[in-house]
């Protein structure tokens, strides 16, 4: 299934976790889903009141991730924006500066800008990402005018893959198809290793000094640390699921 993606073999790791049952699996996936949708939403468009409210509502969930100060920063930022117009305006302006323009972006958040040998939009890496989406049966419907490898779309792919695994886990009909879960984890790991991890932590490290609001400082810090961390989570999940099979 992954042969098309050369040079991206995932090295097996010996981490074995003692997940008790499938419910534990669902919890981990659920939390990952929260993080990926949070990051995807914040990178995809201006943070709306609705989004900020959702973040505030999800605070109890995010509080489980106690090792990630950054996520608490985002939540605190969201709360501040909801109570104070000035902070809200600031976070909007910051989105403009960091993600829209018109001046040069401190870190243009497209994979090919970082990885293509010409450092351009729509580079070879964009087409590789497009292929990966197709392999997962997805496409970015605006690809004629916007590159497929914007951070928000890449994050959405992980969200979507995680969702489909979660659906299998929570489909309580009969036997959970563990093999499918395994291969969806593998797909996510592949995407992280062949794509996101190769550029996104570096990109957000570059962006971080230019972010001045809690929300976007938090987001940059989160993505710098969470993405490599998540690769370990996936390896751990794979280990447990493989053991159950």
């Amino acid at each position: 299934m992954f042969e098309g993606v050369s040079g991206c073999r995932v090295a097996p790791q010996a981490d074995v976790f003692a997940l008790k049952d499938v419910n534990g699996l669902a919890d981990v996936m659920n939390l990952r889903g929260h993080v990926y949708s949070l990051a995807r939403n914040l990178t995809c468009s201006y943070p709306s009141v609705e989004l900020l409210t959702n973040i505030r509502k999800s605070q109890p969930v995010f509080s489980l991730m106690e090792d990630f100060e950054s996520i608490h920063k985002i939540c605190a930022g969201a709360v501040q924006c909801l109570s104070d117009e000035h902070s809200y305006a600031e976070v909007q302006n910051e989105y403009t500066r960091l993600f829209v323009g018109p001046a040069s972006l401190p870190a243009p958040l497209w994979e090919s800008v970082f990885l293509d040998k010409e450092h351009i939009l729509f580079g070879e890496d964009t087409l590789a990402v497009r292929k990966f989406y197709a392999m997962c049966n997805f496409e970015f419907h605006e690809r004629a005018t916007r590159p497929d490898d914007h951070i928000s779309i890449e994050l959405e792919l992980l969200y979507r893959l995680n969702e489909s695994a979660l659906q299998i886990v929570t489909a309580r009909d009969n036997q959970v198809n563990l093999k499918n879960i395994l291969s969806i984890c593998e797909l996510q790991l592949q995407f992280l290793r062949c794509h996101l991890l190769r550029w996104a932590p570096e990109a957000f490290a570059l962006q971080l000094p230019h972010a001045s609001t809690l929300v976007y400082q938090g987001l940059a810090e989160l993505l710098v640390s969470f993405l490599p961390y998540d690769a370990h989570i996936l390896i751990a999940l794979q280990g447990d699921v493989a053991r159950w099979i």
Partner: protein
Amino acid sequence: MDLTSKKAAQISRRAFLQWSAAGLASSHFFLSGNGLLTPLSVQAQGLERIIPTSSNFDCGGRCLSKAHVLDGVITRISARANEELNPAVPVMKSCVRGRSYRKYQYQPDRLKYPMKRMGKRGEGKFGKISWEEAIETIAGRTKRLTDAYGPGCRFLAGSSGTSMGVFDHAKIGRRFFNVTGGFLDNYHNVSLANALVATTGVYGTGNSGNSMDSLLESKLIILWGHNPVETHFGHTNYYLKQAREKGVRIIVIDPRYSDSAVTYADLWIPVLPNTDGAMMDAMAYAIVSENLHDKHFLDTFCLGFDEEHMPEGVPAGESYLAYLMGKKDGVVKTPAWAERICKVPANAIRKLAIEYASAKPAALLSGWGPQRNSAGERTVRGSAMLCCMTGNVGKLGGWAGGYAGISRPGPVGMPIPKNPLGQSINIMQWTDAVEDHTSVTPADGLRGTDKLTAPVKVIYSLSSNYLVGMNPDINKAKRLLEDETNVEFIVASDLVMNSSCLYADILLPSVTFFECWDLTVSFNCGAYFILSQKVVEPMFEARHPYEWMAEVAKRFGVEESFTEGRTQEGWIRFLLKETRKKYPDVPEWEQMKQQGIAYLPYETPAIAFKNILDDPEKNKFPTASGKIELCSKALYDLHDPEVPAVAQYVPAWEGPEDRPRVDKYPFQVIGWKTKNRDNSTLYTHPWLQQVASQVMWLNPLDARKKGIRSGDKVRVFNDRGALLIEAMVTPRIMPGVLAIPTGAWHSPGKDGTDRNGCLNVLTTDRKTPQARGNAHHSCLADIARA
């Protein structure tokens, strides 16, 4: 900072177990908005298509660029293949700029969405808006201001970013303004105003150039301030290279040892800027002294060379010969006299003059650099004078000098409805029209009216970095634009945030030539045009100005007269059809899409004025007298010492003899157009910034005096502004002159000092005496190590 990945590995177990015990199954966090990813509908084809197209920049060349397209993405650009050369109409291979077009197209800095200004004007704060809001704002504000001040308050900053296409954005802007009541149009441009006006005065037309193949018959070629190696004038280089291979002697006259001098010159003669006229006078003197001038030609076709052939109404003693011999001022214009002014050794002047007058035929090509100064018109007239004296006018292998336009077949242009207002200003008057419209007079170039009834209140700046870029004295322009009570509404449509876009109230993302249709041409010496094809969709929310102007026109109730029912592509199809009516050999649409280029070959070289030489009874020069006017009655009547009746040397303001200014600012600063950009287009291209660095050339003698070494940061300054730039100490520039590449985007530091080496913080917007044109290269300044 959170966890490093190593630490992540260590703690993942604990966190993981904790997460897994959360019992979260019911909590959910959704994607906001629509999903970006949708189920796969079509599999990628994986087939590459190669589509010929071309840029529309203000570049002298016009090359075929082949876009390799895979799944809607340009994966590569290639140039015309060697085998595809058509020697009858040579189209050049892409230059270093053309090889970088893909990186230009896909630069992450592209403007992506319509935006509106949030902070003070010029501050750089913008917020994203919808196209709907942008269009409503443009229509509303343009309408309101038009109602309040009349259509004359609307002005267009032209588009050197797209000027070589028939669908040039400025033409579309003109169309829009004219169907909505008219506007304050402008003429001239800062490339060639002085040359065009001066040449038209002498020959009655600007079309004084031969087709370039004529150069192969020349015995001597002089490139006077002409640098085609970097500026790519059509296929000039193709013929210069062949001439060089044939052993034709080539002499380059330039304050800089330019790339063209490096490439072609047998001899380089450095001349002090703004003093070319003195050198020309001395050459003329030497030619007459040696009795080498073509008396027959002068007597038959010219007025004003000697006292026997003067225009009616001009008193005795005003001929050029009388001037040379010092009949009035007692100064004989010998090479020794000129040497003191122009710093060219008298002997070199004499030798050059004799060589030029003896080589028959010989071509003296005067570039547009030396006319972009306060003595520009006189220099152009001087070059024409020398061409006439040596009898090189109207001859194969010769050259008539001056502006050197060539009338060649080309594509039919975009029809522009008449401007109902009928008013226009010379481009150099735009700041006057903003600051104090009552100061704008016909004497300075106002046309169609005696006075303006309103100041400029609306500016559309289309693919143009003119306002605070190519315009001289941009610090003055900035002061005017920053005051929002002057111009009340500025729309800019462009690809990247350049220094002029910074002053926009509404900022719109525009399309590249890969994203729209056009018919593109070279500067006047190429007998062909190219179908510039749309290769990919406009990126992000970019739109061609035609598209949004159609929407605005709709709100003015004149959409139909603006579009005539055609799409952007529809217009290009229509214009190709119209062109085919004139030139039936031009291929039709589908074939043009295949081959890209329409060749319009001519059977013999095109020689300006040859028809007049061949049959002087029937054909006359299109001047009032029917002759070449080396002395002009009209100019004589001005009694303006700066606009003499004959092309004589007059010390230039902001030149080396401009005392006392030159005591304060002892260096002459000139700019030149570099190989790595077209005017200011492509300035931020990272590869092209490596092709030629933004450094100031400085002679070792001057460097020693100022204690400056190569690589030092230098402050260059005068009363108008200051810039910082790295110095390059080199004998490639003559003493007393500093050369800075033009086109750097202005980027001021806190104290206003430009940090990019943007020359136009130093240049003056004072108008030239005859054309009322620009004098970018008449600029005095001083330097200090920063």
